[in-house]
């Protein structure tokens, strides 16, 4: 027999427990729901929202965002808001023509950006640069970075929830997405804005079958060798001007008991890309740019004498006894990021790596200031006397056709973005080289350090610039067999003939 009041308290307890469970559920739901939103979505100032409500188109979009939580539970609502946003887009399309140059009020609109840059310095500086633009326009821009973004974007696009803008590390991927119909072609005014800042040598990588889909927003210079000038001087070595001189210098170093190169190709899921960079750089040197283009397009097979000859050239150099400073003597076991320390420690004399490698050289290192420990670069020597340059970089592509998205796209391609980002990244690196580089024209050169300016002048003045070949090839090869089979030959598991045959077989028909 229980006392009535006792029963009441028990009922009350049950009620509170039920409410507690409901509350816990809603916390979880809220946490899941806000995944897509920015971290600071909740902090959006009330003033912005009030302003947004004045413009009809925007308020619709706002509703859509605010209610996104309910949407996940309430199908009907989702359909409504989706229809609305569809109408919205169509309206924007028709407005685009009439309003053209008139700056629309875009405050309160939201743009999501996704990309592969995820380190504190890089992603942080990228966010700083976007915040700068957000403060000007009132567009809420969120950036999410993930190391395997290039994998994730496949699932996101196929699953119907891509970001508004994706930063493509590989033009080949951009082309795949454009051909599959996921990307929006750039409107004429965006193309015009891009052309103010980028030369055709760079914009061509965002051109898919004659339509412009991508805007370059970051550049890397790959044909570089990092070294210490003072050490070279004290040992009596001179910077090689040709490939043969480089080989002779290496032999001299080995004879003197020095280790010429630090090389490592381990890079987690991307293991092997360092090898592909060497092959690409030498393809561009031993053969003509036309051959290079044919190779990248799949018309010149890997098993051809030209390409497999370059494979052999690289491997012969690497496998020379005493040539390489590497983990357990194994290039395949050495992380590419671990090459900076031994270079600074004089364990090796040279390291061929792109301009961004500044970010991997230990903190506190000085660059190109003439002091005894300064690290500098020289141009990876040519073979045929021309001065070809291997470049790389990222391109932005848009998945949604909306004015705020195009404004952010334009900003990504501007010299202003490059300057703001470069300043932020230099600050975050605590001075020194930032690792960021942009070949956009009209930039204020003072944001770059002297060594970075020399990179830029190499990039902007080179007669022959070619993009990193593996980034242009289809993913099956460029991010697949070229890496894995390259790793296999470097590790000695396969012969060049076997590996190149596998790569050729994997080229999509």
């Amino acid at each position, binding site marked *: 027999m229980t006392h009535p009041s006792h029963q009441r308290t028990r009922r009350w307890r049950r009620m509170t427990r039920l409410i507690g469970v*409901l509350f816990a559920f809603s916390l979880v739901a809220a946490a899941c729901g806000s995944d897509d939103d920015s971290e600071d979505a909740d902090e959006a100032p009330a003033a912005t929202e009030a302003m947004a409500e004045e413009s009809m188109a925007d308020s619709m979009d706002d509703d859509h965002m605010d209610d996104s939580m309910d949407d996940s539970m309430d199908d009907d609502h989702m359909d409504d808001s989706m229809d609305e946003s569809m109408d919205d887009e169509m309206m924007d399309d028709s407005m685009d023509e009439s309003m053209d140059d008139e700056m629309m009020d875009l405050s309160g609109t939201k743009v999501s950006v996704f990309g592969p840059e995820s380190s504190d310095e890089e992603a942080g500086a990228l966010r700083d640069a976007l915040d700068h633009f957000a403060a000007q326009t009132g567009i809420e821009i969120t950036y999410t970075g993930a190391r395997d973004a290039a994998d994730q974007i*496949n699932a996101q696009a196929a699953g119907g929830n891509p970001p508004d803008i994706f930063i493509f590390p590989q033009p080949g991927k951009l082309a795949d997405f454009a051909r599959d119909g996921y990307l929006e072609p750039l409107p004429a005014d965006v193309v015009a804005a891009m052309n103010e800042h980028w030369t055709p040598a760079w914009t061509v990588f965002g051109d898919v079958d004659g339509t412009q889909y991508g805007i370059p927003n970051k550049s890397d210079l790959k044909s570089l060798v990092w070294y210490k000038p003072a050490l070279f001087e004290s040992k009596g070595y001179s910077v090689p001007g040709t490939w043969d001189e480089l080989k002779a210098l290496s032999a001299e170093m080995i004879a003197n008991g020095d280790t010429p190169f630090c090389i490592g190709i381990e890079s987690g899921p991307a293991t092997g890309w360092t090898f592909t960079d060497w092959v690409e750089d030498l393809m561009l040197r031993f053969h003509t740019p036309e051959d290079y283009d044919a190779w990248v397009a799949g018309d010149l097979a890997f098993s051809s004498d030209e390409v497999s000859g370059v494979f052999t050239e690289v491997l012969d150099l690497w496998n020379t006894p005493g040539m390489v400073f590497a983990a357990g003597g194994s290039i395949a*076991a050495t992380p590419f990021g671990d090459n900076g320390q031994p270079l600074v420690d004089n364990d090796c004399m040279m390291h061929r790596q792109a301009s961004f490698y500044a970010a991997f050289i230990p903190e506190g290192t000085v660059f190109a200031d003439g002091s005894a420990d300064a690290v500098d670069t020289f141009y990876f020597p040519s073979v045929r006397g021309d001065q070809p340059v291997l470049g790389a970089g990222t391109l932005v592509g848009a998945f949604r056709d909306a004015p705020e998205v195009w404004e952010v796209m334009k900003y990504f391609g501007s010299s202003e973005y490059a300057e703001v980002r470069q300043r932020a990244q230099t600050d975050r690196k605590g001075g020194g080289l930032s690792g960021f580089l942009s070949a956009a024209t009209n930039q204020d050169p003072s944001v770059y350090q002297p060594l970075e300016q020399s990179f830029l002048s190499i990039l902007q003045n080179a007669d022959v610039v070619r993009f990193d070949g593996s980034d242009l090839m289809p993913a099956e090869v460029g991010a697949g067999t070229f890496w894995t089979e390259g790793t296999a030959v470097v*590790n000695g598991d396969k012969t060049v003939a076997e590996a190149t045959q596998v790569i050729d077989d994997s080229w999509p028909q």
Partner: protein
Amino acid sequence: MAALWGAFVGVVISVGASAALFWGTHRLFALVERRWAAVAAVSGVITGAVAGALASGIRSGPDSEQLLAGSQLVWIIGGAAVAGLAGAAVGIGWPLSAARIVAVQSRLRALTFVGPAMLFVALGLIIPLLRTIYLSLFDKRGTDFRGLANYGEIFTNAQSLDLSGWAGIFGSQLFYGAVVLFALMAVIALYRGRRRGVRADFSPGTIGIGLGAGLLLSFAVFASLRGTVMNNLWWVVAVTFLSTALGLLAAVIADRVKRESLAKSLIFLPMAISFVGAGIIWRFMYIARPPQKSQTGLLNAIWVWLGTLRPSTGGAWAAVAVLASVTAVLTGLCAFGVRRRQTAIAVGSATAAIPLLWLIYRFLGPGVGGSVPGPNDEPIAGTILFVQESPFNNLWLMVVLIWIQTGFAMVILSAAIKAVPADLIEAARVDGADERQVFFQVTLPTIVPTITVVMTAMIVLVMKVFDIVRVMTNGNFGTQVIANEMWQRSFTEFNLGLGSALAVVLFLGVVPVMGLNIRRMQRGE
């Protein structure tokens, strides 16, 4: 805060809606008594609408913008109408007797509770499974039908199945080791058989030798026949067998030590570490640094340190002294075994002494461990590239999973050992059985069902191994497995056809084992 309230309201609404749904169906089924035909019709309409929506969704693909567009409404209404009419026809055509009404009502009520669960299983498992099988018959973007070409590619591609190295089986030391062990097993069995007057008598020890020989033989085969599929099989065989064997050993030994729970906790501890975490930990264990630098990877550090022990430096003499004293103990044990006619002890200690004698020889002669004399006779580290040297790098990767799974096997087998009825063991002892006989004749046969359960659970888990390979090599250096290949094909290359086919192959590999397990459970093991 607004988000939180929104979510709260949403949860309240959905809980309310579910409650209303349950109440509604309950009322509906209460009507079966009086209006059977109407209930049948309404049920038909609901089922038809859902089926129509699903069908139209599958037909038009995952294009969410099309949701509830005109053509889909047609599908839903059409489905509802057809199934509703069918339901009405059933309701009118087959009137129910009083007894049937009760049966139908109870069945329908059960359905109310099982239905949502079934629905979630269907949405989350069955439909994706069917779609995966469907996609596996198409090309990389799921548009052009390719038949079974994707499956053909899996089993003809040299990357996934390369049998060309079969001749290497007969050249490998593992093969000869297996042959020697098989011969040893046969000799012992025949010898024992002759003493007991039968053709061959297999003692537990003999069977153990046979199992070891089989394992060596399988390693010889897997090290020669390469490719993704063979790697997966190697994982299944090695990890399942070794984890179970080590787990059983640990369970038996832990059963007899003082601080049993402490010992078992320590062995079970790795189970608490995720596969990714364990992969990263073991990467550091295996890491090799440049020969000129001190080694930071534990195994290479030990290996290189051993190499520095040379007779010239005196370190080797200390090592030899330690080894010699252990060998002396083993020799004494062997003599004891021979005197007491305990063949297991004699053979075991003699076998254990062989590698020690070999080590003593190495220490005094060519040296042990990774160190080669440099130009000025200074030792230069000779590291082992555990992760890079194919094919036995696969084994070093498996060590990670064995390290994790041994604890799992031990805990379950230990519980089984403890559950062996004490009177059974008591009776065996009274009959004069010694410890060994009690274990092999009583305990082991009793826990065989548990061993099977452990092994099948392990096979299912190992077949799907992904994280460790992804973290440690990502399939490079000849360590690719099906699950990682599936990831790369599907998500790196976006080849949905081939990725789905690999998923189906993995699924088909797992299903029979799962089926076996479920049948065991249903028999009430």
